[in-house]
């Protein structure tokens, strides 16, 4: 762990002076930061600090008011979200955004979208290539369901799952796009302790496959246990960064989180 965090790896994602403004409220005030490739990066900070806004900017759902975002050295600020997904960034949402009336299986199959090709003609006329592709999609989707442990629920409508499993399903759907960077927005929010522990294991296993993980999370225990590096955002500003050990002693962080002593 320590070795990864200390190695001067090329950042997979680099933020340069990213700023985001809504009306009179500034959500991000010039964030600059690089996420090293292959690590688990936590982003913490109080509610409303701008963490989700940051994820929206990286995944293309918002385009920053100013500043640059580089993914593997390539500027992606202002690209459409589906292009960013094709390039290899996927995400989950703070308020679960599953396709609720579709089955669990279909949700993950949809995640294969950026890695498959058949269009209207090929699917409508059932070209052999399309049938092969559909079979492959089904196999791969099953693989991801197995990976997160939801294979038994494959045929249920996604909306019928309990919240904990919905959150896991969202992660499976994100993984199915084969991202090299996956953004998890409060994956443990609303989970009980046992579910949170399982989530921690899952995130570690994702990291072991070589995927860089960035997560916004409030559960400090989870953050401290699994992340290699922590970025603290407060009031739209970069407050501190370091290893979990460094962060936990950081006076500014303690104040931001607990209020002054």
């Amino acid at each position, binding site marked *: 762990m320590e070795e990864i965090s200390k190695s001067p790896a090329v950042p997979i994602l680099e933020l340069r002076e990213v700023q985001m403004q809504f009306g009179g409220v500034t959500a991000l005030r010039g964030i600059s930061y690089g996420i090293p490739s292959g690590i688990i990066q936590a982003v913490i900070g109080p*509610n409303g600090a701008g963490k989700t806004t940051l994820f929206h900017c990286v995944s293309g759902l918002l385009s920053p008011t100013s500043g640059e975002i580089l993914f593997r050295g390539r500027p992606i600020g202002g690209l459409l979200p589906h292009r960013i997904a094709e390039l290899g960034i996927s995400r989950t949402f703070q308020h679960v955004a599953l396709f609720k009336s579709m089955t669990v299986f279909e949700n993950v199959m949809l995640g294969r979208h950026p890695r498959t090709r058949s269009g209207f003609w090929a699917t409508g006329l059932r070209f052999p290539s399309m049938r092969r592709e559909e079979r492959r999609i089904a196999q791969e989707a099953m693989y991801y369901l197995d990976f997160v442990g939801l294979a038994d629920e494959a045929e249920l409508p996604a909306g019928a799952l309990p919240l904990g499993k919905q959150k896991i399903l969202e992660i499976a759907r994100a993984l199915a796009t084969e991202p090299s960077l996956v953004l998890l927005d409060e994956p443990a*929010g609303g989970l009980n302790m046992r579910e949170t522990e399982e989530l921690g294991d899952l995130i570690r296993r994702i990291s072991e496959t070589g995927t860089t993980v960035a997560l916004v999370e409030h559960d400090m225990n989870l953050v401290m246990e699994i992340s290699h590096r922590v970025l603290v955002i407060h009031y739209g500003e970069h407050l501190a960064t370091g290893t979990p050990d460094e962060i936990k002693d950081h006076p500014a962080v303690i104040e931001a989180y607990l209020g002054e002593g």
Partner: protein
Amino acid sequence: MLKVKSVHTYYGSIHALKGVSLHVRPAEMVALIGANGAGKSTLVNTICGLMKPNKGIIEFQGESIQGIGPEEIVRRGIALVPEGRQIFSTMTVEANLEMGAFIHRRNGRQVESDMERMYERFPILRERSQQLAGTLSGGEQQMLAISRALMSRPQLIVLDEPSMGLAPLVVKEIFRIVQELRREGRTILLIEQNARAALQIADRGYVLETGKLVLQGDGATLLNHREVQRAYLGKGARQIWDA
């Protein structure tokens, strides 16, 4: 004054509140703390009438109020300063305050003098009275939201995450305001994730975790309770923070 008895609320298919009971006595400030997704907002929405509890009783000043719409609950004397401020952003500051006093609209003189008092309390709002509320800064919006709630002359003020998304200095200012309200003898239910700041100024506190109250006690005791840090920061965080 406010009594919540074993309330269950479902949020869609999610069982968000699993039998929550709490009470607030007159002229008391009670803090409710808990992590994101613990059910704080659901509890607030249930008390203020935006959501209906599936089971349980909510009483305010001896009358049952569960299932009553929010319009009526304001008239009964509960004012909410909502999470994320929820000001009328396309209207002027003045109009926002006026709307806060909607239930007193027939009493023009009272509204005017109340508004004057708000301007005295927050001079910055007087300066911006003709500006669109959406162009205010986060801290100013929060002050506006608090004043708007006060304009209804409530007996109980529910403050939902007043420090959310604000700069540290502004947070301090907001807590100063909350403390001032408390000194004036107002009854306050404060929902916060800034646990320490909230418990420091509260008489009593409750800790909510995944839809259940796990702890309660007076502010100072809770503040030093290791379980509070556990509930808010997660298991084992104490060691990390104390290390």
